């Protein structure tokens, strides 16, 4: 594969997923500037490793999952390097039930789709759960693809998705909006 041919195929198969790459990086880092830098670094990494990618036009999803794996790993490296107080949250044991109430199922139903409330809840969701939810709900990756991207077993993907969604549902069904610093249920 010549450099010209490689560039053409890269722009055909990988470049269309730029927005997904940014979306993932943004949700993982919660920083616009960092997300753009991470995506740029990821694209350069992806380009230099493009020979190792064996996809075809018939399966564009594979190219997306491949790129998102690189974005995810680059983001994790960035997060480790820039570890701060709230970035340390991300371990599974940090996720606890935000509320023990709402015995009435009707009351537990998601009341509002207030966008800012959802955004805030998602930002507060610990990293491991957040990445699973983003990859599934926003990027539409299958369990198998998430498992490969994150590098955990399928069962862990399902458990993180399930617990992450439960947590979000409970947060969003409480009458009061969650305050970021308090992070109900987060330690």
């Amino acid at each position, binding site marked *: 594969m010549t450099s010209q041919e490689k560039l053409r195929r890269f722009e055909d198969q990988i470049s269309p997923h730029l927005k997904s790459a*940014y979306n993932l990086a*943004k949700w993982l880092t919660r920083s616009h500037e960092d*997300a753009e830098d991470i995506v740029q670094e990821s694209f350069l990494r992806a380009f*230099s490793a493009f020979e190792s990618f064996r996809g075809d036009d018939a399966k564009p999803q594979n190219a997306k999952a491949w790129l998102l794996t690189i974005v995810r790993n680059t983001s994790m490296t960035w997060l480790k390097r820039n570890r701060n107080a709230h970035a340390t949250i991300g371990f599974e044991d940090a996720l606890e039930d935000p509320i023990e109430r709402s015995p009435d199922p009707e009351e537990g139903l998601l009341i509002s*789709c207030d*966008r800012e409330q*959802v955004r805030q809840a998602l930002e507060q969701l610990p990293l491991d759960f957040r990445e699973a939810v983003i990859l*599934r*709900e926003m990027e539409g990756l299958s369990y198998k693809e998430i498992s490969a991207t994150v590098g955990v077993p399928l069962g862990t993907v399902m458990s993180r998705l399930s617990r992450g969604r439960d947590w*979000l549902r409970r947060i969003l069904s409480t009458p009061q909006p969650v305050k970021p610093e308090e992070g109900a249920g987060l330690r």
Partner: protein
Amino acid sequence: MTCDDSRIYLPAYLDDELDVAESLRVQKHLSECGDCRHAQDEQLALRSALRDPDLYAQPSADFSKRIEAAVRQAAKEEARSQRSSWFEWFRLGSFRWVPAAAALVIVTTIGALLVMNSLRSSHEQLIANAVLAGHIRSLQPGHLIDVPSSDRHTVKPWFQGRLDFSPPVPDLSELGWNLVGGRLDYVDGKPVAVLVYQRRMHNINVFLWPNHGSADDAIREEDAQGYQILHWNGAETTYWVVSDLNNAELLEFARALRGH
């Protein structure tokens, strides 16, 4: 399917991760169970909230141009480094590989020569052993000569009919080497001629046979249990000389024989 099972399967059902049979079972349960339908509605509500397009993070307006430029720059640099790496390979290659190849050829050649040499010398060692054995045997009473004569015109014809070659029988008496006779012996799987010369009381056995290989006339010495063995390949004849004579005198004899 129980409600507990249904709740476990529900997320995977909504994520379209169940096979057809499992999906149908969940579907059937949902159609029969209001509580589980309610759970499904909750999950679908969360899903649609999360899939709100406005939550999807958008990069800066010119971001895709910036990335495209960065990737194209990387492609350009890669092409350049590939060209230069090929160049380097060839350029350095000619300096790195030529001595390496030369060294390989030298090592291989030396190895081959050593092997050939050791094969040759082991072959010569075999002949030396046979010649020495023949010499020692000849010292037993009655074994030294079959045709006792100091006359080369008697000795030379004696070999005719006994060998398929006619060995040269030089007269070296003027140089102090007296021919005393000849006999047949057996060396390296073939009958050979042996001429016997004497100086003082020392017998000199000269084994000779046709030389079918290369000739260099170089006199070589072999180790031999207190005996002197000299041999060389003449143009037509291979000579092996063995005696208990001292090395210097035997070498003198060998040169006289060779020069004849």
